[in-house]
């Protein structure tokens, strides 16, 4: 088991490095941060531009630039933005913001997706099955920026109708709001509801379709009939014997669904005013900032690969045939 995990981990670390290298080279080739400086009116003097080129190491070949940057990253320094601000002090805070969003979004998506999928399979062709099927089709066709804006619109209407401000849709906390731990947690909760739904609902719809199919396959299988025949209660048959097997193929989907959710990050963070990694990615590309963009890429690659490792673990835990 340990050897298998170590081997997978090593494989993932190499992939991570290659992904970062690939993005660094791509970004260095396509980005031209000097254009931004040149577009100032009046244009800055030639010396200023030359200095900037030197500061950003743009006069060096790309492999050398990557080497310098990556060596610094290994020592915990992510370099500077094109405006000369250090990236490192903000990395952990922004990673934390995105991590909270992704963690809650994942839990929401997986739990809701599995519940809806299983209920759809158990109550196949009933009203609830049709209702959730229809809903998931619409959600799969709906990009995060439409869903997020729709939720925001719905929240303003709901708040207006109920005359409260329960649903908050800007930032992680109310600015300047302090209180006891419980009160602050409640404030955070009010802020996190909508972004979690926005980022997780699409994933839930996606998982639920596959969970329904895999549960239907299991429901028709011989071993479930045997379990029922030997006198187990229906609940036990469905959940202990059926669901456990129906969850196995879902483990493989988890990584893919998680990667899709990461793409939802920039939209959710921009729409709900969270300053996380996704927001940084958009800033990085808009200012054509290689260091910033690749730092976010590193975060994304690590997230995708950790989710891959988690999926491997879940697979091993769920499938009794896998004994590594």
């Amino acid at each position, binding site marked *: 088991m340990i050897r298998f995990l170590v081997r997978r981990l090593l494989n993932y670390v190499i*992939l*991570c490095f*290659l*992904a970062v290298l*690939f*993005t660094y080279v*791509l*970004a260095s*080739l*396509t*980005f*031209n941060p000097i254009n931004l400086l040149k577009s100032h009116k009046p244009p800055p003097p030639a010396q200023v531009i030359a200095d900037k080129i030197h500061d950003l190491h743009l006069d060096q070949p790309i492999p050398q630039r990557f080497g310098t940057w990556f060596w610094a990253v290994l020592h915990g320094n992510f370099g500077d933005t094109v405006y000369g601000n250090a990236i490192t002090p903000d990395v952990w805070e922004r990673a934390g913001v995105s991590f909270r969003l992704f963690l809650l979004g994942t839990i929401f998506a997986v739990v809701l997706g599995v519940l809806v999928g299983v209920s759809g399979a158990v109550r196949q*062709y009933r009203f609830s099955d049709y209702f959730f099927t229809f809903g998931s*089709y*619409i959600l*799969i*066709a*709906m*990009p*995060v*920026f*439409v869903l997020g*804006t*729709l939720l*925001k*619109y719905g929240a*303003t209407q709901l708040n207006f109708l109920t005359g409260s401000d329960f649903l908050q849709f800007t930032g992680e906390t109310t600015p300047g709001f302090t209180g006891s731990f419980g009160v602050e947690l409640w404030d955070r909760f009010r802020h996190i509801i909508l972004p979690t739904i926005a980022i997780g609902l699409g994933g839930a719809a996606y998982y639920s379709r596959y969970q329904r199919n895999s549960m239907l396959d299991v*429901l*028709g299988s011989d071993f*479930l*009939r045997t379990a*029922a*025949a030997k*006198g187990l209660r*229906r609940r036990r*048959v469905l959940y202990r014997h059926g669901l456990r097997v129906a969850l196995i193929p879902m483990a493989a989907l988890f990584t*893919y669904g998680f*990667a*899709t959710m*990461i*793409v939802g990050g*920039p*939209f959710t963070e921009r*729409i709900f005013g969270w300053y996380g990694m996704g927001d940084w*990615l*958009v800033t990085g*590309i*808009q200012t*054509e900032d290689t260091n910033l*963009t690749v730092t976010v*890429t590193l975060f*994304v*690659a690590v997230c*995708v*690969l950790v989710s891959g490792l988690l999926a491997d673990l879940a697979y091993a835990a769920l499938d009794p045939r896998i004994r590594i």
Partner: protein
Amino acid sequence: MSIMLDEDAAARPPTDDRGPAAPRGSSRGSLVWRRLRRNKLAVLGAVIIALLFVAAFTYGWYWPWTYTQSDPTSFLSPPGPDHLFGTDNAGFDMYAQTMRGLQKSLIIGLLVAVLSTAMSAVVGSIAGYFRGWADWLVSAVVDLLLTLPAFLILAVLSPAFRGQTWLLFVLLIAAFNWMITARIVRGMTLTLKEQEFVRAARLMGVPSWRVITRHIFPQMSSLLIVDATVNVGGAILTETSLSYFGFGIQPPDISLGTLIADNTASALTFPWLFFIPAGFLVVTVLAVNLVGDGLRDAFDPNSTRGVRRAERRELRAERRAARAEGRAA
């Protein structure tokens, strides 16, 4: 569909000229077609797509406003008789804008789908057929590209195609969208390669490219058709997502993505500006997905769709009885 007829003719026992003619419509192509027609949702999806296409590409003939023409007498007017979908803050007619955006999004979706499916088929079959270093290289590239979301790579590439033709954008979306299908195609090629008819062709000295195009591709035509259909929706979503941040279609071109992005800030105050293009986007992708799922069911030999209604009811009753038994026990 003619490709599939070939394959089926081989599977069917040869009919004798003197014997009774084979029942009409027993070929696989017509079976798929019949199943698809029975699937009401798939038909609905196809009708919606057809309507959207006609409405978007002919709007200049039946609509009084064009997308470049602004109405100085009405700014930000809500949907009404003069402007069916209202106007934006510069007086542009939202119906004309939406149709223009829909044109671009639909054409991008179609082009990307065809290109990326073709790429999956070529790359995947080469990797599976030739093995060796080609296989190693393809697997490595697929692994690498699947580590990073395509959205991120395309966003990083966006400065390179800014100011270029949108066709370059189409090529790039397709270039980062083929990996998963290529992997499936590779796996299928590996098994197909060992089958007798492929071996026979190879032993007869048929060149490799011909074996791939004549014997391997037809075997996975159903996968490729379904994949291309589903990719239309995915490509439209990728295009709109990139355009939302200004990484995709650039002004003066309009797509559903740029329209939605421009009007997001107005969503709370002038909702029609946002929700009309967004609604068209969702309906388009939904319709494409319905057709894709319908096709998948129609191609699936175990599917109960296309079975006569009474038979299906019987099947369902049987399953229910089996379940009830389980419950009683």
